[in-house]
């Protein structure tokens, strides 16, 4: 589903060159639930951003769903992200001025869908994460766990093949973290969604199919 070949990422400033990722090669199968672990600053999020086409590698090749992404322009990349990828972030990235339902509908705004269809799909997605009764709430009226569930609903509303989760349980206590993890496991199991998750939590990582460890930008496991 996702193939990374010799990915390198170098950050350059006027005086310093930092190698964030060093020759990473990874194959992630369709329906796989993969976790990425490593100490802070080892390049986990950078790798996830590159997989999510939010950042471009300095070297190497990425193929997602058998499609090479290196020659895609801004519009094609945006369309690809919209249809194929779903994102979950540690800090949720919900828009506080929009109600839960509107937040979940966001990815569908960049597709050719009617308002009625958007509402139906968003309600369905919220039902899947158990928040159907919170559609009119604003994010600030929800707990951390509920906010992350809204973020998951937003990630799955467009029915993407791949979900990229950057420390989805990082801001939550263990009980809420487990709830979120359950939702992700169910998504992977029931819907066959490929999930790549960056985490610091060994217990969470153990629940996934495969664990990749990074250290100083290199893959060590």
């Amino acid at each position, binding site marked *: 589903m996702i193939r990374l070949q010799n990915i390198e990422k170098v950050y350059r400033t006027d005086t310093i060159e930092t190698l964030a990722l060093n020759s990473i090669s990874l194959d992630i199968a369709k329906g796989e639930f993969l976790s990425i672990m490593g100490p802070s600053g080892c390049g986990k999020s950078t790798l996830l951003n590159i997989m999510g086409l939010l950042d471009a590698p300095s070297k190497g090749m990425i193929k997602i769903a058998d499609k090479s992404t290196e020659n895609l322009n801004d519009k094609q990349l*945006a369309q690809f992200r919209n249809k194929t990828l779903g994102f979950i972030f540690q800090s949720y990235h919900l828009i506080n001025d929009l109600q839960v339902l509107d937040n979940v509908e966001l*990815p569908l705004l*960049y*597709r050719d869908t009617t308002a009625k269809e958007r509402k139906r799909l968003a309600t369905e997605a919220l039902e899947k994460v158990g928040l159907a009764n919170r559609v009119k709430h604003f994010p600030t009226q929800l707990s951390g766990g509920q906010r992350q569930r809204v973020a998951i609903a937003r990630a799955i509303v467009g029915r993407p093949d791949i979900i990229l989760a950057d420390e989805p349980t990082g801001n939550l206590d263990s009980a809420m973290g487990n709830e979120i993890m359950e939702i992700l496991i169910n998504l992977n199991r029931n819907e066959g969604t490929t999930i790549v998750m960056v985490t610091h939590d060994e217990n969470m990582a153990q629940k996934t199919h495969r664990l990749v460890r990074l250290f100083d930008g290199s893959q060590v496991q």
Partner: protein
Amino acid sequence: MFKHLFKLIWNKKKQNFLLMTEMLVSFMVLFAVFTLMVYYYDNYKKPMGFKYQDVWVININNSYQTKNTDSLDLYYETLRKIIKSLPQVKDLSFVSGNVPFSNQINQGGLTFKGKHIDHLNNFTAEDSYKETMDLDVLEGRWYNKSDAVSKYKLVVIDADLKEATFGKEQAVGKLLGNDDDKKKMKVIGVIQTIKRNGDYVKAGPGLYFRADTGSFRWLSKILVKVSPGADAAFEGKLYKTMAGYMKNSNIEIEHLTNKLKDTNYFAVIPMIVLSIVSCFLIINVALGLFGVLWYNINKRKGEIGLRRAIGATGNSVSSQLVMESMILATLSLIIGSFFAIQFPLLNVFDLSAHIYIIGMLLSIIFVYLLVLVCSLYPGRQAAAIYPAVALHEE
């Protein structure tokens, strides 16, 4: 997307309130400026109604004291002959004090067929007034000697009064006067409205009466049409000639060309003041808008990154910010237009509705252009934000 943006703006109404108020105030000031400009232009493009070049105004005070009308007539007829005998004088006319471009007014009102006409200017002029002023007669004729004896009191009206009383119909031969007056006036001619208040300010309707033999007692001005080459030396000669005849009388000679300049100058001052105020406001709004949008980009980097991640292109992020500003402007303009439309509806300053409407449309276009220009650059900056960086900064 429009509904989505509207929701976003509505939910942030408290944050947007100040900016919307600023836009609203700017619109109202621009509305005043543009309405004034349209009003001035509307008057400017109308014909002057007479040829003011080479027409001089001589102010005289009546030094010749007599109760005998014949003696008075003789005195002023002699003065007329003396002035006319000067080689560079083409024509002259004794007139009432409210000559063009002067501050003197003689106004009344008229209720004709149930319609009340306010600020009706009353003028008194002689038969030679037409030649002296080179009047543009639109219908009928100006006065002549045969009008001294008539069954009716004869009157010449201007085009504005004709429009207000008879509309598109012919006015000559019709009777005019207050509805309750038994003795009406008969219209013998319609002249082009004279822009007596200068190029920019509306003159108002005018009613011209014929000066009769007793009028010399109070006709305090003489309009003199001179040859194009008449200079200061001739002016001096004219003064001396008149002073020689009119002992102990104050004589002052003014040129209508200069008087027009002064009148126009005083008309333009309010517009200049308003324009300066609006310029400051526009700069203020432009900087405010620019600042708010710039601040928004920095404050909303996370949102921008998120939108990019879930499928927005750089251009759609940019156009979203521009559209948000335009929606804010639209809301302000709707409120502003509600207030602005009251002016023609309530006829606040007695201006034609079309002047207000054009002023309003110009203000709306200007505000939209201002908002567009101020939001384009911040919008482009937002589009250039790299999603990974934006999401990381949040």
